[in-house]
């Protein structure tokens, strides 16, 4: 398995992308003006898919260790785009959070969600930091405070965009990476607690956030207000049953379920393809996580291990959070389902992650019978075997 991690990874990704395009065609037919005959959204997504595949191929053929050299730029650049979102005129607000920035180039509206990329940049920066030979993760200053400060800067600027979902995800990612890097448990506990209290403060401070948590206790009661989206998504899952209503037969997309083609594509899978579809999706994501973890485990150096782990966790957590939200186990927040949801930035970011993972896999050190892994401590560069 471990040797073929890339194959399984790419297989899962391909299947998920196919699912995504199928569901997009099925859903958008009803969502667009003019009956969706133009498949406008589908064509737009196809364009992004092309861009994404190109990016993935490029990254798969580029040595990932290259990025470690530029970790400072990665860190700085990520922070800058996040802050740019807050500046009126460049960033703008959608559904209550200012996580978009956009420009109109040649009459085509280009809108990107920088936080998608910022997360990857943060992972590169963090992994590169811990990959440096003079950084002992168990030390206090270099091992904890500096990376913690880097993480806090990202989390706070995402928090400033009033995007709690991405903020917590970023915090989770950072803490996981630090955990795997081997930071002392006491610091991690401290970080975890402060992150949770920050989250609690955010829930209390921003409007609607508390209610979004509260309504989960009885969604049906709030189905006319904030609970609408999640309630309808439950209806979609429930009415789909095992077999589903079959492709194109879904009803909730008929202007009942808002965002049915983006964040809430998963209930559409449940409604039209049934439990087979949803369980299959979950399985594919589990496969991605398993493959990613294998890649990370056999990465040639600490930087690679951490980066591989971080990117896998990013994909896995995004999927988990999205599916948790749509099944009403988590409060509603705007996170897309990687590979499946409509949206260019999300697709591109996910493919960038895959590309880097593939490259890590290509440089991986695989244990064969009678051969011990050659791992040099604290080495930044391990020759390929």
């Amino acid at each position: 398995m471990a040797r073929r991690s890339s194959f399984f990874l790419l297989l899962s990704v391909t299947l998920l992308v196919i699912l995504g395009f199928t569901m997009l065609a099925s859903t958008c037919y009803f969502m667009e003006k003019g009956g969706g005959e133009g498949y406008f959204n589908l064509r737009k997504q196809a364009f992004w898919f092309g861009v994404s595949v190109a990016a993935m191929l490029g990254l798969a053929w580029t040595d990932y260790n290259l990025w470690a050299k530029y970790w400072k730029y990665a860190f700085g650049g990520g922070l800058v785009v996040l802050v740019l979102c807050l500046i009126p005129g460049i960033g703008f607000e959608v559904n209550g959070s200012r996580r978009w920035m956009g420009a109109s180039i040649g009459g085509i509206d280009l809108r990107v969600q920088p936080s998608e990329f910022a997360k990857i940049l943060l992972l590169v920066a963090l992994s590169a930091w811990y990959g440096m030979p003079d950084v002992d993760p168990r030390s206090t200053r270099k091992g904890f405070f500096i990376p913690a400060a880097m993480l806090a800067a990202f989390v706070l600027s995402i928090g400033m965009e009033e995007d709690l979902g991405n903020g917590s995800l970023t915090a989770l990612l950072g803490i996981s990476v630090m955990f795997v890097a081997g930071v002392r448990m006491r610091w991690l506990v401290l970080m975890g607690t402060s992150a949770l209290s920050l989250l609690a403060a955010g829930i209390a401070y921003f409007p609607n956030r508390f209610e979004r948590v509260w309504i989960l206790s009885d969604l049906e009661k709030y189905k006319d207000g904030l609970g609408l989206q999640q309630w309808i998504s439950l209806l979609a899952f429930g009415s789909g049953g095992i077999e589903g209503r079959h492709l194109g037969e879904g009803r909730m997309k008929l202007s009942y379920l808002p965002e049915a083609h983006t964040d809430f594509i998963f209930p559409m899978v449940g409604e039209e393809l049934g439990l087979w579809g949803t369980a299959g999706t979950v399985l594919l994501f589990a496969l991605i996580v398993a493959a990613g973890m294998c890649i990370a485990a056999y990465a040639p150096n600490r930087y690679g291990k951490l980066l591989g782990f971080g990117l896998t966790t990013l994909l896995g957590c995004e999927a988990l959070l999205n599916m948790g939200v749509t099944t009403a186990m988590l409060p509603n927040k705007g996170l897309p389902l990687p590979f499946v949801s409509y949206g260019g930035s999300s697709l591109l970011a996910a493919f960038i992650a895959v590309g880097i993972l593939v490259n890590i896999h290509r440089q991986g050190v695989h244990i064969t019978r009678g051969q011990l892994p050659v791992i040099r401590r604290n080495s930044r560069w391990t020759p390929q075997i």
Partner: protein
Amino acid sequence: MVVKYRFRLYLLCLAMMLGFLVLVYRLWSLQIDRHDEFVHRVPSAREERARVPGVRGEIRDRNGLVLASNRAAFEVRINLGEMVSEYKRQLPKGGAVPTIEYDATEGGRKVRKKETDVVQIFNETIQKAFNEMGMAKGIDSVDMQVHYRTFAGVVPWVYRDDLTFSEFSRCAEHNLGLPGVSVTERAVRFYPYGSLACHILGYVRLADDQKTTAEERSGWDYFLPDDYGGAGVEKTFNEYLRGKPGVRTMKKNERGRLVGEVSFVEPHKGNDVFLTLDARIQFIAERALREGGVGRGAAVVIDPSSGEILAMASVPSYDPNRFIPSITTEEYASYLNNPANPLFNRAVNGYAPGSTFKIVTSFAGCLADIQSRHFNCAGGVTYGNKFMKCWIAEHGGAHGSLDVSDAIMRSCNSFFYLYGNAAGIDNIAKVGKLLGVGERTGVELGEESSGVLPTPEWLRLNYPRDRWSPGHTANTSIGQGMVLATPLQMASVVATVANAGKAYKPHLLKRVTDGPDVVLENEPTVRADLAKEGIEPKEVEMIRRGMWKVVNAEAGTGKGARIPGIEVAGKTGTAQFWRTVDGVKQKDNHTWFITFAPYKDPKYAVCTLVQGGKSGGGCAAPVARRILEQSLALDNGYEVTVQKMPEAKGSFKFVESVTYADSGGVPEAVASDEEGESAPVREASEERPAPRRSSDAPTIRRKADAAGSQGVSAQQEVPKAVPVRRAGLFRRLFQ
């Protein structure tokens, strides 16, 4: 490090796998365990039931001639709820639905409320499309807004109810494609004979949308209410006539778009109602009133042997077709503001009956057993400090001693003053009750008034300051003073006389049929049998004899009613009445004639009333004669073709006498008829404008207001032919 790193990595990997497991468990419980719970709560393709109003039954005369039938009308109805929701759906991103504010009272407090501005949406969408076709019409914006607020979608709002067939076919050809608009063909009332018997038939009005109750609407997705009768027998027999609604079941897809018809249960026609009317006699009566130049008046023909009303005419009249399906405000106002009041059925309204009432008084004498006594006319009688004159006193003289039949012949007032007082007001009241004077006859017309037969009791209730005196009795005895009787009541009285004392209830309903099946056969009911009350046939004969003399004796007052070859009996009446026109009192007598013929075995009992006439003998009698003569001739091969009747225009011209061009040999009317000058009629019998309740008023076409006529182009006559765009290949494949 390596071990620790691996351990922590696997730990987190395990945590994520656990997360996926939880997710699968959750999906399992949602999609398998709770599947049944959710699957029924999902909006799905559904069937919607639309109520198709029933077709009203026909109204026919006794011989089956159709007096009220149905014709096809084309109307445009708009489901406002659907219009608004489609508008919202097509709204460009970021566009706002127009709203307006209105005042409402909520729990006693005045609040400003916001709602969708349907009028603007309508103007932007549907009105625009109709404008392009040249078929737009202004609307009453307030009415539309209130309709939307009340019903939203269930009861479609009537946009146009007066489409012509060519407009209808143009709509059908264009297939409109406007959401919520339905162009339908509907059966509406049609009166083939115009204003013939209009006061009996009444009219039909559109259901008042605001009055359909929630119970009626429940269970229907679209509720098209039935029309209902607003006046006349249309109203009285509404329950029989009303059709049974049909059901159109339509399929709507998940998006709420209509995709087709599932089933259609056709509406049933309501029951047919056969009236006792004979259209030919009705036509004869109406023609007689019109040709006689009667400005305002009424005629009633009753079959004395059953109480069936054969004709009931009232002039001026109206054309009920103008009320279908709705009437313009101006037209309706012209009816209402017409001082002659054409909407008003004079045949069932109370007027001072004058001397015709002496027949009732005569019967009262029979009850008191004074019918064979003689009373002396000395030109008048003194009651209290007032000398009440007989009409003969004007011409200088007196009638001398008279018996009942001679007194009837001469219409002597003095005799009846004395005779009435001798009989007593109680006996007059009793006979009045038996004959149906002073109370509603129960004829199947809601507009009937009861008339007044004054008694001491009645006076105490209505004029507490007055006290009953023999003078009152004397005045009542000659049908003056406070007495009011309707032409129908007097026709019923004369029918009783003709029928030798057996009083039938006058009625209009002959039978009700459902297709070939008879649902109801209306049997005549006896109101009173005078023989059982102690009035013997020979006493009745005395009164009949008196009525015979009125027409046939030289000294009779009603010689104008003589018909060669037929023995006619009758009684004239002239009640003095003044109308106040612009502050000037003007003579406007109510002249009456009640008659029956032939004398032996009477076939018809007729009562005619001519308002603004000179005398009963000169004005009312010739009309009655005309009706009798032609009606009796029907049995001898006289042919009458019932034709469409134009509206009778009312007039206030004083009628000196009524003559018909084609009738020769009518004896000249007696110049000096009886006139009850001794006690002028009070003016209480002023005609009330009809109808009395707003729910009975005809449907008045709403006028367009400023907001409702936005963008309606002025030219509407010559619509341009708009080429119909062919649907694209894709549409044609998938539609």
